[in-house]
């Protein structure tokens, strides 16, 4: 992490242990009661208020115990819901080794975290924090693994269900990480020896309240430029303009992930296109920072040739990349060891996909994940392609401030939820997508959304014809 803080940063590789199959299946079937008990509880949305609760106060013992109580209540329920979602996959899909591995990881995490007794003192809290940190790191690399697993299961599940499953997984994973990382960061902040006066402290757990997007973009762009230089031996230049002095309150690791994905795409496209049309130099990449009301906008303009009309619908699909060759995507005769993605073995993939220093392109889930991250706190990510010239990417991030937005938790059935997700693509009102029956939306949109859903339902009601007598 670029804004490194004083805490251990060890990231172990995913353990590829092989457990006997019998134990795994019997565990799924007979131990289910506990998981279902947790999964049936309601989850509360990750509210801005909760995240910023300890902003002004110097952190005290009560605050920390309060925070751990919140985490202890929320995390096992969310983990249990994730585990349950695997139970609903088709059997053949569940037996795929990669998907089974991820299922094991989530089950482990649930096992370890739900067993803690209610925490009343700082030692127990420290144990919990360490366990939490370990689990967060172990679950860090599930996305490439599960994407690979679904790639192998292409013929067993339609694309919409696969995409829906991965979307749900990523969204809830973001929630898990936000809660978990927030508590771990607060815990370290409480215990750190260097404690400045509460007012000066820009950090509230994992949130930095005075993040300067311009400075961050400058750093990331320079980093990606170096990566590009290493990979291709040449790299375009970049420049920043707009409101460069603005600050925003956001989680730096999220911003870093999104920005780096977008920059990697821009740089790679520019270099490739220059080679393709034989131009003499790379046109620079323009990064514009704008500040609206509670929003920060970042526009990244490149002249990398744009995305063709045929490929536009696919850019937000998982396991699809313009860099991947067609043959590896259609590979149907796969065995566990020989399965590949982008021509590399899974091990190499995982080794490379370690945070920001990941490969410059090719794994196929940078954009969809970036969009989910952007949308998690009410932002958005849009791409406009000018074929033959370049791409414009519009990123909007909502500042995580206490008075920013009022939300309403709504409960709906899956059909209504689908309608709402579709409406959301035109006008963003969903703050957090909790699970298949709950959504958290901005309060000001409630009436309009209600009217729109009613209208949709009305228009799709069919009258049953009376049989002719």
């Amino acid at each position, binding site marked *: 992490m670029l804004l490194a803080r004083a805490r251990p940063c060890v990231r172990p590789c995913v353990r590829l242990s092989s457990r006997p199959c019998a134990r795994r299946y019997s565990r799924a079937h007979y131990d289910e009661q506990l998981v279902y008990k947790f999964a049936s509880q309601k989850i509360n949305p990750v509210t801005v208020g909760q995240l910023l609760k300890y902003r002004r106060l110097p952190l005290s013992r009560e605050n920390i115990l309060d925070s751990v109580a919140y985490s202890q209540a929320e995390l096992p329920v969310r983990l249990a819901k994730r585990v349950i979602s695997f139970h609903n996959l088709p059997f053949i899909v569940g037996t795929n080794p990669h998907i089974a591995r991820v299922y094991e990881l989530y089950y482990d995490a649930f096992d370890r975290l739900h067993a803690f007794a209610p925490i009343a003192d700082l030692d127990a809290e420290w144990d919990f924090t360490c366990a939490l940190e370990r689990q967060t790191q172990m679950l860090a690399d599930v996305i490439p693994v599960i994407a690979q697993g679904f790639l192998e299961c292409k013929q067993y599940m339609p694309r919409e269900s696969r995409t829906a499953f991965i979307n749900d997984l990523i969204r809830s994973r973001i929630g898990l990480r936000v809660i978990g990382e927030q508590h771990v960061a607060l815990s370290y902040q409480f215990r750190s020896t260097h404690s400045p006066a509460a007012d000066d402290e820009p950090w509230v757990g994992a949130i930095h309240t005075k993040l300067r997007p311009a400075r961050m973009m400058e750093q990331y762009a320079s980093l990606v430029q170096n990566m590009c230089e290493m990979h291709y031996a040449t790299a375009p230049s970049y420049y920043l303009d707009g*409101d460069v002095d603005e600050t925003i309150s956001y989680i730096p690791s999220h911003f870093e992930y999104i920005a780096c994905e977008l920059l990697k795409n821009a740089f790679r496209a520019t270099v490739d296109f220059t080679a393709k049309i034989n131009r003499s130099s790379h046109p620079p990449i323009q990064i*514009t920072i704008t500040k609206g009301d509670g929003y920060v906008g970042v526009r990244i303009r490149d002249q990398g040739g744009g995305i063709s009309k045929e490929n536009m619908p696919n850019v937000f699909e998982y396991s699809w990349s313009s860099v991947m060759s067609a043959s590896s995507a259609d590979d149907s005769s796969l065995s566990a060891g020989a399965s590949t993605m982008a021509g590399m073995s899974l091990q190499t993939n995982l080794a490379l996909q370690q945070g920001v220093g990941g490969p410059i392109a090719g794994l196929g889930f940078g954009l969809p994940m970036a969009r989910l991250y952007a949308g998690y706190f009410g932002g958005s990510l849009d791409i406009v392609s*000018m074929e033959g010239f370049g791409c414009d990417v519009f990123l909007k991030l909502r500042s995580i401030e206490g008075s920013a937005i009022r939300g309403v938790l709504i409960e709906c059935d899956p059909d209504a939820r689908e309608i709402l997700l579709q409406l959301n693509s035109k006008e963003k009102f969903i703050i957090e997508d909790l699970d298949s029956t709950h959504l958290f939306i901005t309060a000001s949109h409630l009436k309009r959304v209600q009217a729109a859903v009613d209208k949709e339902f009305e228009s799709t009601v069919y009258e049953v014809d009376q049989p002719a007598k």
Partner: protein
Amino acid sequence: MLRSTACASAPSKQSSRIVSNRMRRRLVSSVANYQESQQKLKTTTSAAAALSTSSASAASAAHARTVSVQSGRSLQQKFYENRILDRYTAQEPKKVTLRQLVLFGRQLTEDKLVASANYVRSELPVRLAHRISDFQFLPYIAGTNPHLKMVYDLYWRAFDEFRKFSPVKTLDDNRRFCDNVKKNLLEHSQVIPQLGMGVAECADLVAPDEIDRFMNQMLISRISRRTLAEQHICLSEQYDDDLRAHLGLTATEGYAQMASAPRGFATQRIGIVRADCSVAQIVNECAMHAAGLYEDAHHLPPGTAPQVIVEGHTDATFMCIPAHFSYIIHELLKNAMSHVMERYAARLESDAAALAASSGRGASAFGSEPLFPPIRVTVCSSHSDIVVRVSDQGGGINPEVLPYIWSFTHPLKAKRLHNFHAVNRMEARVNEADAVAPLMSFGFGLPMSNVYAKYWGGSVNVHSLPGYGVDAYVQLPRLGNVVENISARRPQVATGV
């Protein structure tokens, strides 16, 4: 409407009386409602009273009763005549592509010209019929609005005229036909202001989605009819010019000698289409025109308006109707310029002294710094599309208005739509901005540009960066092989048991 009991042409006196009584009661209440809403919305009564159109009774709200006088027949009578319309709405319009229009003109003989006349003669009634039936499916209260009713009557008259026109067989017939069409085009140039006023007044009475759909269909169809008509007229005139030149006649004489063309005489014309329209050239022309408008309106010396820089594939060309493309670009540039000038208005004021001192000397008088940040237009040409990006630093679009910029009606816009009261004619052309005050905003530019773009299968998209500026993208097909994007009337409602 209140005189309907006297109508003699209804087939059954008994039923007509029942119908008319019920209708009369509803009409009275609807007129009362309408007048009430008129009082609430009316802002420019004096302007409206002064407005004179070819149908004198449409202007004033107090004469809502005289709605039926224009056509001389009552609505109830028309109800039974609607069967004529059904014959035409049952036919689908025969759509064309730009390529077909161009190829048609390649070998333009007398026969082809006559065939084109007959195509237009048969197409216009079909397309008009579809739109008339759109009116008929509007909610009753909207249809009784005098402005919408006026357009409805205009369309009915045109429909009647065209369907009764005898087939065109000779060049003379064609010339008569063209004169007829020209007269209709002129008469219908008041449609857009009337629709605008009518729609503004119905904003409270009909759901906005329905109004938007209605307006979009109306306008797309209107563009399609005018395109066909203007193309044919243009081809005919160009053919006549060539024929005159061929026969050695001067410009003013010779219709008698030109009753029919010599055998084998052909010419090559493509009318209002251009096969190799240069994007950069059109953008520059529109930029100059828009800059001139604003400079005149604000009494600024030439060169002060925001500069427009064209970048990208500056030599790109494509097949299009230049009038349509210019309209879109002109609207976007006008929006961009007005926002930039508004945002940096302070700079204008602080330099007012310098302006007064150096008026007439042009932009260089203000030093090397231009007064406003430039508007950058980027042209991209791919194999099948042209994309033009208009990027300004005008501060972005107000987030409250943003969801409604593509809508023809919305409470925030209704006030602007009343500006139509001051305008008699509007054809949605670039040059007519000279006749209409440029600073008058109707809230129409973006939706209308969208209609023009959609007609040939393109699109207009707007991304706003709040606090900074706006990027607008116009995407149009390049090769002219996309079919007109007009839709037929909505499908028949199935009658249940």
